[in-house]
C-alpha cells in the first residue's frame, strides 16, 4: 500500500466506522492528507466531525476501518471485520506525531504557563529542563505570551489559554496539528488572536486538520474543506470551490445557514 517509493500521506483514514452504543456516529469516513495541507472540517453539530478527529489520535477507538499516520498503521480491520490496533507503545509513538488543540484547552491548572509547555518534553521525551526552556520561551514569544510565562492558566483569558495550548502542542514538535473547534469556547472578540496564530502556523506549512465553525478561516486558510453531515463526508473540495458553488444540497443549506 504505502511501501512504494512515494512519500506516504500524513494521514490516511479509510472507511472509518464509529458507534457509541447503538448510535453510529461515523458511517465510513475516508480522508487522505498530504504534508503541508490545511484542511477544514465543517458541518452541523452532531455530524461526527469532532469524533472523526478524535479517532485519528486514538482518543476514540474505531469499530472498523484503517488509519495510517505517515505510513505507519495505527489501526486496521481484517477480512472478518475485526478491528486491530498497533501495540500500545506503537500507538503512543504514532500518536505523538500529532499535536492536538481542544475546544476547552485542557491546560493543566496546577502548572504555570511555562510548566505546561515543558511538562511533556521532559516527562515523555526525557529532555533536560535547560534544553526545553529556551524552546518553550521561543514558542511563547511566537504566540505573543512570553510575559505570561509564570502565570497560572486561571489568570489567562480564553484566547490566551488557547494560544498556550497551541504552544504546548508545538513543543512536542508534531508533524500534524489537529484542532478540535479551537475557537468555539471563546468570546467572539477573542477568536481573532487564536485564528491569527493558526494562520501563522499554516503559513509555516504545518499540516493542519481543523474542525471549525469559523467559515472565514476555512475559506481563507484551508486548502480543502470537508463538509460532514450525519456521520458522512458529504463533500470535500478546494475551499474556494466549495464556498462558491456547493454541489450538494445539504452543503448549500448548511452554508446558507452559516453565512
Amino acid at each position, binding site marked *: 500500500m504505502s511501501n512504494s517509493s512515494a512519500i506516504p500521506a500524513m494521514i490516511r483514514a479509510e472507511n472509518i466506522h464509529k458507534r457509541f452504543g447503538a448510535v453510529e456516529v461515523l458511517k465510513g469516513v475516508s480522508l487522505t492528507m498530504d504534508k503541508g495541507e490545511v484542511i477544514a472540517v465543517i458541518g452541523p453539530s452532531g455530524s461526527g466531525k469532532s469524533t472523526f478527529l478524535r479517532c485519528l489520535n486514538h482518543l476514540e477507538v474505531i469499530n472498523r476501518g484503517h488509519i495510517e499516520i505517515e505510513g505507519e498503521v495505527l489501526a486496521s480491520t481484517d477480512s472478518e471485520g475485526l478491528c486491530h490496533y498497533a501495540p500500545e507503545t506503537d500507538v503512543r509513538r504514532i500518536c505523538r506525531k500529532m499535536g492536538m488543540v481542544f475546544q476547552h484547552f485542557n491546560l493543566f491548572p496546577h502548572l504555570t504557563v511555562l510548566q505546561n509547555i515543558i*511538562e511533556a518534553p521532559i516527562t515523555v521525551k526525557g529532555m533536560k529542563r535547560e534544553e526545553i526552556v529556551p524552546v518553550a520561551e521561543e514558542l511563547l514569544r511566537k504566540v505573543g505570551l512570553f510575559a505570561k510565562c509564570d502565570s497560572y492558566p486561571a489568570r489567562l483569558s480564553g484566547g490566551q489559554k488557547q494560544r498556550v495550548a497551541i504552544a504546548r502542542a508545538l513543543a512536542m514538535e508534531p508533524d500534524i496539528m489537529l484542532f478540535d473547534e479551537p475557537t468555539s469556547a471563546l468570546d467572539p472578540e477573542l477568536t481573532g488572536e487564536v485564528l491569527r496564530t493558526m494562520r501563522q502556523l499554516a503559513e509555516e506549512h504545518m499540516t493542519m486538520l481543523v474542525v471549525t465553525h469559523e467559515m472565514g478561516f476555512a475559506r481563507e486558510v484551508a486548502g480543502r474543506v470537508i463538509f460532514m453531515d450525519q456521520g458522512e463526508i458529504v463533500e470535500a473540495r478546494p475551499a474556494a470551490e466549495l464556498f462558491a458553488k456547493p454541489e450538494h444540497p445539504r452543503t448549500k443549506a448548511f452554508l446558507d445557514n452559516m453565512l
Partner: protein
Amino acid sequence: MDYILNILGPLIAGTGVTLKMFLVTIVLAVPLGLALALARISRFGVLSGAVNGYIWLMRGTPLMLQMLFIYFALPFVPVIGVRLPDFPAAVVAFVLNYAAYFAEIFRAGIQSIDRGQYEGAKVLGLTYAQTMRRIVLPQMVKRILPPISNETITLVKDTSLIYVLAMNDLLRAARGIVQRDFTTTPFVVAAAFYLAMTLVLTWGFQYLEKRYAVYDE
C-alpha cells in the same frame, strides 16, 4: 496548679503514646489508601471488586472490634495466624481501617478531575502512570485537603481506643489518675492536650490549603 504540674508527667507520657500511634498510622495508611484507591478505579474488575469488598469490611465493622480481632483472634487463624504484641496489633488495625477511609477520599478526589486533563495528557504522549503522577494526583491533593483534614483529626481522637489493649495513651493515663485521686481535673487537662494536637493539625491543613491556593481552577 501544683496538682496539674504533678499529673503532667504521666499525661505527657500518654500523649507520647497517642502521637506515636497517630504518626505511624498516618505514615502507613496514606500510601496504602492511595494504592487502594488506584486499585479501586483500575479497569481490572477482579482487583477493583476485591478492594470494594475490603473497604466494605473495614468501614462496616467497628475499629475496636478489628483491633480486638487482630490482637486476640488472629493468632488462631490458620496459615496467616500470627501473634502480635499490643502496639503492632493496634497499628495493623488502625492502618487497615484508616486506609479504607483514605482510599475513598482519594478515589473521590481522583474522579473529580476532568476527563479533559487525561485527554490533554494523552495527546502529549504521557502514559497512564505519568498522567496520574504528574497531572491528576497533584490536582487531587488540593481538592481532598478538607476531607483528609477531617479524617486525621478523627484519628487523633480514635487513638484513645487502644486502651482496650491496655496501652497507656493520653486518655487512659488521665482516667488512671482520675480513679486514683477522685478528681476530674485530669480529664480537663487531657481535653486541653487533645485540643492542642488538633489545633496544630488544623493550622497545618490551613497552611497547605493556602499553599495550594496559588492556582485556581
